[in-house]
């Protein structure tokens, strides 16, 4: 159709022949030979394999790189068809067809990298990229092909594609919703979890603003402002869990936790956000907080109740106790023995109940009254306790001794009560003989003061060591030792409110040593 095309085809001659004919002593040809030898130098210096082909597809020239790359000797290639080494896609490009001339066909290829498959002498194939350029010669237009082995690059590309698919796999496998956002706040990638969590189809979210699903706090974090660059803005967020609110397609909102990580890409740094629905956790947290509040209130109510109940119970009981005592006294000897016995039981019951209520009141008071923590002399507190116990000490003939005692951080009234209860117990639970009680204090490993109240009394079986500190726990019959079983419970409550610990070391018949710890005051005593 195009006359030039046909003409070119007609004058086609073998370049190998032309090169052989270079020996002819002709000025023009000599010039060409010079040119060709110069060209040859360039050819050999090129880092790529270079093959010059005529329009018939025959190889007319090649360089050392080409020999190496294809595994042929030069003479095995010269004059051979280029299809031997590049089976498909090269020769065809040089040929004019019904649509274009050879020049046009060639012009379309010039300068662009064409990826093809090359074949070595041993038949193995490898990926190449060829760059074509025209070379005018006496025999017409030749084509120089720079052939680059792109095996390495192809491997890289394959690797990259694998990486991408792997990354996508990771993205889809992630248990959290994952959304990748660019710095403009547009969603560029998301996983199935994200679709589910926000109730959108993938195509409804891709390219949309992330603000649609996370209205506040995310997009803002990606932006540079006057104080920081985009990179800094992002760097500040990376890896930290950010609690925000997500919005579903239906408009409903739910609490989320966001973890951001940067993702380098051709379009700049992207941000991968792992989004976790924390509704359950939030609800659990709120529930727990509510429970703690309720527990605190119920505990407070209980202490208030114990206080007021024991206080109000005391009033009518005071009447019962007082009048039965009055009755017993006024009518002593005037009633029969049955009546006197009945009255005696009533008096005894009422006064025991009074003691119980008073102890219970004291116990609840330890909890309900505020603590007045001051630096006080524990020795002073012990002295006060001993004054309060003077009657009991004198009655029992007990000898109470003590070492010098330190200053401590404590509520003085409560410390007096603590010593009083422990010393009273030491005197009370005695075998025949002189009760000996000794109080001492020493620093323990935690730098706290450890107090000891040691007696030579009955001692306690180790199986009861825990129980004796419980409320209403008694080890003896009322006929042996009167008591309400509250004294040591009060001790425990006092010590624990001071951040200390109370325990006993003892054995039956060995006496007992009650120990408790208290925080030392800052000033050394």
């Amino acid at each position: 159709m195009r006359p030039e095309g046909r003409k070119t085809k007609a004058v086609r001659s073998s370049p190998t022949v032309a090169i052989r004919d270079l020996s002819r002593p002709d000025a023009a040809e000599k010039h060409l030979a010079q040119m060709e030898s110069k060209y040859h130098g360039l050819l050999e210096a090129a880092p790529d394999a270079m093959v010059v082909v005529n329009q018939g597809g025959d190889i007319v020239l090649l360089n050392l790189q080409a020999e190496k790359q294809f595994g042929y000797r030069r003479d095995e290639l010269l004059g051979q068809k280029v299809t031997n080494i590049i089976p498909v896609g090269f020769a065809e490009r040089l040929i004019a067809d019904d649509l274009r001339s050879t020049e046009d066909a060639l012009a379309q290829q010039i300068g662009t990298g064409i990826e093809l498959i090359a074949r070595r002498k041993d038949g193995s194939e490898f990926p190449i990229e060829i760059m074509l350029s025209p070379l005018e010669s006496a025999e017409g237009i030749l084509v120089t092909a720079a052939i680059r082995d792109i095996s390495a690059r192809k491997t890289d590309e394959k690797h990259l594609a694998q990486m991408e698919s792997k990354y996508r796999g990771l993205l889809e496998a992630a248990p959290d919703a994952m959304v990748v956002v660019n710095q403009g706040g547009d969603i560029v990638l998301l996983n199935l979890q994200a679709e589910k969590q926000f109730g959108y189809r993938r195509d409804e979210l891709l390219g949309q603003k992330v603000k649609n699903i996370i209205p506040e706090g995310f997009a803002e974090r990606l932006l540079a402002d006057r104080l920081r660059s985009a990179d800094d803005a992002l760097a500040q967020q990376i890896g930290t869990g950010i609690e925000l609110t997500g919005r579903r397609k239906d408009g409903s909102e739910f609490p989320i936790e966001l973890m951001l990580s940067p993702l380098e890409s051709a379009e700049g740094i992207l941000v991968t956000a792992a989004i976790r629905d924390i509704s359950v956790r939030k609800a659990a947290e709120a529930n727990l907080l509510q429970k703690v509040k309720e527990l605190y209130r119920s505990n407070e109510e209980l202490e208030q109740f114990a206080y007021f109940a024991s206080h109000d119970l005391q009033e009518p009981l005071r009447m019962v106790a007082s009048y039965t005592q009055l009755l017993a006294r006024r009518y002593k000897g005037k009633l029969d023995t049955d009546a006197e016995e009945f009255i005696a039981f009533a008096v005894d019951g009422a006064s025991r109940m009074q003691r119980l209520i008073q102890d219970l009141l004291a116990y609840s008071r330890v909890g309900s009254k505020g603590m007045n923590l001051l630096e006080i002399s524990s020795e002073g507190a012990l002295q006060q306790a001993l004054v309060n116990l003077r009657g009991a000490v004198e009655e029992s003939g007990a000898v109470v001794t003590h070492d010098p005692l330190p200053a401590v951080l404590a509520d003085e009234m409560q410390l007096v009560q603590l010593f009083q209860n422990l010393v009273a117990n030491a005197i009370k639970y005695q075998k025949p003989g002189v009760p000996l009680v000794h109080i001492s204090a020493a620093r323990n490993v935690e730098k706290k003061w450890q107090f000891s109240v040691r007696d030579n009394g009955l001692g306690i079986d180790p199986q009861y060591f825990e129980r004796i500190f419980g409320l209403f726990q008694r080890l003896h019959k009322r006929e042996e030792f009167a008591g309400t079983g509250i004294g040591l419970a009060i001790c425990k409550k006092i010590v624990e409110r001071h951040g200390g610990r109370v325990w006993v070391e003892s054995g039956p018949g060995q006496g007992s040593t009650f120990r408790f710890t208290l925080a030392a005051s800052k000033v050394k005593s």
Partner: protein
Amino acid sequence: MPKEILLVEDSPGDVRLTQEAFRDANGLTQLHVAADGVEAMAFLKQEGTHVHAPRPDIILLDLNLPKMDGRQVLAQIKQDDDLKTIPTLILTTSEAEADIVKSYRLYANCYLNKPVRFDAFESLVKSINDFWLTKVKLPPRAPSG
């Protein structure tokens, strides 16, 4: 001359107990009882049925009373030029610090807790008798001025 005591107390049990305790402590005391604050003020001001009421030597005043409570009664007594010289003893079960402080601010002459045990109560009444009705010099009963 028997000592006149005004007991302001709403609990009949406590009234009787106090009467019994005073009877044992001093047979010569005359215990008058007002069951609430309004009646106490009427007695002191010799109003209504109390026109012939004697002026008490001391007043034993409970704090928690119906109608007008003990704190108000105390305030009125101590603001009254005629009545304020009568020693007014607070006798209550309240151990609250606020009540103790408030009572003294209103010029109570002393603050006493009702003991829980009867023997302790008896001994308290005995102390009151020994101190306020025996050792203490009281102002003359007839209003001065």
